[in-house]
């Protein structure tokens, strides 16, 4: 009994911690963006985190970007967020994916030095005026008459604020599962937040239980790299942020390669033989996991006929030799994990440093949110990131930024900010979440965007920087730089529309014939000529005079894309234009759906649950049929 006595706990005495404009709870990728945005907009902001060592920590992949996600990073950057800067300062490898495809789906991905990434973000937050970073666990929200007025921490501090943002991630009643082992924990063995979840339930929130997981880490010293395939970074210069100069790009030799290996039938047999110890299948894990990044045991059960799966070996950083085994996410018992790792070519002698694990956590079912990410239930309370059911650092950061902006705008007494589906992937994501909800951790995919060609990573600055500027997150200088780029692009396009290639130009015709095409019959404009698949901007300059001033690669890229794909771009713009009329039809916030005659029962229930803000949003709710929309459309016109 002595030990029980020794572990007895007691609560802190409460005290007044101070007044803020905005409080952000949780300092992961969502919370960091939220707090920085609110503070940069001029709000006195408090960022509370369970552990200062967990600021912008990457408990899973040491990487940022990729398809759709990379575009989100650019969008965050264009709006004035931090993720792009932070990864540009701390990457160990940079690669452009999908280079063989169209401009809309090209995707930049960086391998991050996860420790440097954390330190850099923490430093940025520490240096940010208006922003206080504190370690504490928030146990409770201060809510009066349905309005959130602050938070109470485990250390007894009562902090007051005009708006509160919750970005608590997998800490929310987090539970780690490794085989038969289960324990209360946040990500990477950090503290979990139990009381906050209880408080949210008490306030009436509908919480769901999700699951995610991570693979084991091994000591790189014990990897046989020569048994695997090298995956080096790109030589060609890429950055995420609009502001990062090309001169900062690391040469390939300064980058760290990833390595590719595969599982084999031996691995699969091993897993099959131990499925009874897999929490995924033994019924231990109740939370819903993502289809998008399944555990290895899940892959083997669902794709039984595949005889191998890829495993990417990714470095966790420069000052460590810990390696991440991308593709081997698992919650099997540690003993089995070790055997699984050793069964893979190149990892026969790999020393396990940390086991993989599954983690279950609470999610605020996102139908309870406005598109501003404010909760419908409690005014001035916003949620973002994994708390809203997403997975991924970029998804979290994108929402964190929007939640932070809206909390900041609320504190400033200004109108809220919402991105439409045609504005940004962030808009697509939030609309999906609040309109359709999600049954599993939500990951952005390019196929979720119906205007994919307009939401490119190369035009995020043109799409969003003006909005960031209006909010106050983009400086005049930065905005002017973007405008100048835009003008250069427009001027060069106008020039190419007037420059002509003539049929009597033998050099042009020789070039055309070399590519198996018919020689010119009539003069064509340079703008039309560049549409041919074998022509790019540099080729064009062989046949027409160059511009008055040298154009940088970003301008040339825009000119090429805007001219080459003009037809498709126009088609998508028309699609947006058609949808806009419905986006502009607002449904009154106080609408009583019981008063709308003729709605189908299911439609009425769904509308009541989601309470869409526009007719377009209503039309995207599954279960609301076109007749309901027609009826609603007439009703709101009355």
């Amino acid at each position, binding site marked *: 009994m002595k030990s029980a006595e020794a572990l007895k706990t007691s609560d802190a005495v409460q005290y007044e911690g101070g007044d803020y404009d905005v409080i952000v709870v949780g300092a992961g990728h969502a919370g960091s963006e939220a707090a920085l945005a609110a503070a940069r907009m001029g709000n006195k902001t408090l960022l509370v985190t369970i552990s200062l060592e967990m600021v912008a920590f990457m408990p899973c992949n040491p990487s940022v970007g990729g*398809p*759709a996600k990379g575009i989100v990073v650019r969008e965050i950057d264009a709006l004035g967020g931090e993720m792009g800067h932070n990864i540009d300062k701390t990457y160990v490898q940079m690669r452009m*994916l*999908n280079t*063989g*495809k*169209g401009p*809309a*789906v090209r*995707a930049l991905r960086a391998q991050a030095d996860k420790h440097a990434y954390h330190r850099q973000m923490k430093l940025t937050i520490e240096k940010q005026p208006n922003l206080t970073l504190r370690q504490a666990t928030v146990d409770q929200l201060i809510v009066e008459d349905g309005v959130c007025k602050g938070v109470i921490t485990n250390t007894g501090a009562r902090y007051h604020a005009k708006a509160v943002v919750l970005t608590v991630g997998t800490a929310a009643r987090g539970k780690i599962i490794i085989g038969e082992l289960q324990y209360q924990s946040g990500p990477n063995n950090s503290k979990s937040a139990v009381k906050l979840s209880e408080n949210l339930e008490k306030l009436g929130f509908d919480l769901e239980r999700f699951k995610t997981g991570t693979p084991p880490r091994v000591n790189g010293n014990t990897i046989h790299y020569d048994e695997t395939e090298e995956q080096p970074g790109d030589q060609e210069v890429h950055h995420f942020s609009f502001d990062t100069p090309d001169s900062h790009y690391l040469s390939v030799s300064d980058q760290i390669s990833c390595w590719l290996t595969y599982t084999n039938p031996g691995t699969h047999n091993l897993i099959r033989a131990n499925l009874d110890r897999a929490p995924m299948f033994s019924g231990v894990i109740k939370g819903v996991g993502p289809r998008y990044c399944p555990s290895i045991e899940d892959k083997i059960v669902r*794709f039984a006929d*595949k005889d191998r799966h*890829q495993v*990417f070996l990714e470095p966790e950083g420069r000052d460590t030799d810990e390696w991440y085994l991308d593709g081997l996410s698992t919650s099997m018992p540690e003993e089995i994990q070790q055997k699984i790792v050793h069964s893979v070519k190149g990892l026969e002698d790999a020393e396990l440093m940390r086991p993989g694990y599954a983690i279950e956590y609470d999610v605020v079912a996102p139908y309870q949110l406005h598109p501003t990410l404010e909760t419908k239930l409690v005014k001035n309370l916003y949620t973002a990131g994994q708390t809203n059911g997403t997975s991924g650092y970029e998804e979290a950061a994108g929402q964190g930024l929007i939640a932070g902006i809206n909390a900041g705008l609320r504190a400033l007494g200004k109108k809220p900010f919402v991105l439409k589906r045609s504005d940004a992937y962030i808009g697509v994501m939030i609309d999906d979440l609040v309109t359709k909800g999600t049954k599993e951790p939500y990951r952005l*995919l*390019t*196929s979720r965007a119906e205007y*994919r*060609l307009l939401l490119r990573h190369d035009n995020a600055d043109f799409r969003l920087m003006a909005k960031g500027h209006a909010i106050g997150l983009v400086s005049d200088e930065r905005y002017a730089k973007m405008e100048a780029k835009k003008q250069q692009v427009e001027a060069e396009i106008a020039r190419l529309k007037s420059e002509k290639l003539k049929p009597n130009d033998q050099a042009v015709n020789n070039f055309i014939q070399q590519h198996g095409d018919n020689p010119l019959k009539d003069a064509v404009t340079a703008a039309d000529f560049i*549409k*041919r*698949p*074998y022509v790019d901007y540099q080729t064009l300059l062989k046949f027409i005079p160059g511009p008055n001033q040298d154009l940088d690669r970003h301008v040339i890229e825009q000119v090429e894309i805007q001219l080459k*794909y003009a037809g*498709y771009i126009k*088609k*998508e713009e028309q699609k947006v234009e*058609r*949808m806009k*009329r*419905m986006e502009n*039809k607002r449904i009154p916030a106080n609408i009583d759906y019981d008063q709308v*005659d*003729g709605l*189908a029962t299911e439609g009425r229930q769904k509308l009541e649950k989601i309470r869409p803000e526009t*007719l*377009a949003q209503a*039309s995207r709710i*599954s279960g609301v*049929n*076109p*007749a309901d*929309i*027609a*009826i609603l*459309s*007439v009703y709101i*016109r*009355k």
Partner: protein
Amino acid sequence: MVANTDNDTIVAISTPIGEGGISIIRISGDDAIKVAKKIYHGKDLAKVHTNTINYGHIIDPDTNEEVDEVMVSVMRAPHTYTCEDVVEINCHGGLLATNRILQLVLSYGARMAEPGEFTKRAFLNGRLDLSQSEAVMDLIRAKTDKSMKVALNQLDGNLSHLIRHLRKDILDVLAQVEVNIDYPEYDAVEEMTTKMLKEKAIDIRQRIESLLKTAKQGKVLREGLATAIIGRPNVGKSSLLNSLLHEDKAIVTNVAGTTRDVIEEYVNVDGVPLKLIDTAGIRDTNDTVEKIGVDRSKKALNAADLVLLLIDNSAPLTDEDRELLAATKDKQRIVILNKTDLPDKVDRNELKQLVGQDHLIETSIVNNEGMSQLGQTISHMFFDQGIENSQNNVMVTNARHIGLLHQADDALGDVLKGIKDGMPVDLVQIDMTRCWDLLGEITGDSYQDELLDQLFSQFCLGK
């Protein structure tokens, strides 16, 4: 669009076709007056007062030819049935004149209204007051549930099966493209190249186009196969006409026309409904041989799906015969060598050469010889060759389905164009997705905002 504030201009014939002495062609939308103005001679419709009716003529601006004498009503937004600008053209009720005017309106900027679209616009533009709109809501509710069922029932089981099969094939392609994009490094899926996409697109397009062929067939079954009987004077055109009409099985529908209209008559030949064009012209030829002849025959040719070209066996081929043979070369035709009861004067070798692969039948119409062979040939051409690839006897008859199939076909055309232009696979895929969505609207499998339009197809056309 769910709420169609997209006031593109629509047109439809709003009176029952082929009945009544007057037809009304209704145009509604932002450009209604502009479109009408282009084909109307009379007062400046842009300047006339609202709710006025104006006398004038419809002319074909291309040829300056007068089409009909008409009264045109102009009603300006918002106090009209649809709350949009509305023009109604009252013309003589003949089928040809009415159709001709409709075609003109269509080619000068309006599009064909979908069934119930005028009412739908009235409804969506808030034209109906509270009680009315509630009534319409009930109606929509009833129509919706019903129309979904009706639409599904209407869909021949085979058709929806075919469409679902098409969609599944497209979805497989799309999914493969998407996986390549969202998981570019994963080796589980073969890279979908535009070359592969091209093969799929061509295959799917062929299947859609053969469905569309059946649509044409369905239209023929409903409206009759437009058939022209041509030939130089005195080859036996009127004998053939009479022979066809005097048979017991003839459906005699004399479509009323004005003096400018051409008489059409319907007969059923071996199960194929023929709409005989310009039978008046044929009858006229007996009286005024000189005036009528090749010129008039050529005119009838333009409107014909099937040509019955008569040649006189009792006289050598004339230049007129050769001219008509040449003029019908690209048409579906049956060449009838008539008057085989009289001595052969036609150079058979020359005739066979001129007829080529087409059908050549010998008849003696006055003796009723060769008529059953003619019937069989028509039936064979129509059912066996005409409905080639009839895909398990699926026939597309619903106008909405046909429209969607056409759009899906166009989308695939864009896919192939994109591939030809060397566009990357993810851009080409944009049009492939569009095709998928469009096909889904036929079976009700995809939720599209445009789907609302389908619900209103239960309303009767024109109102």
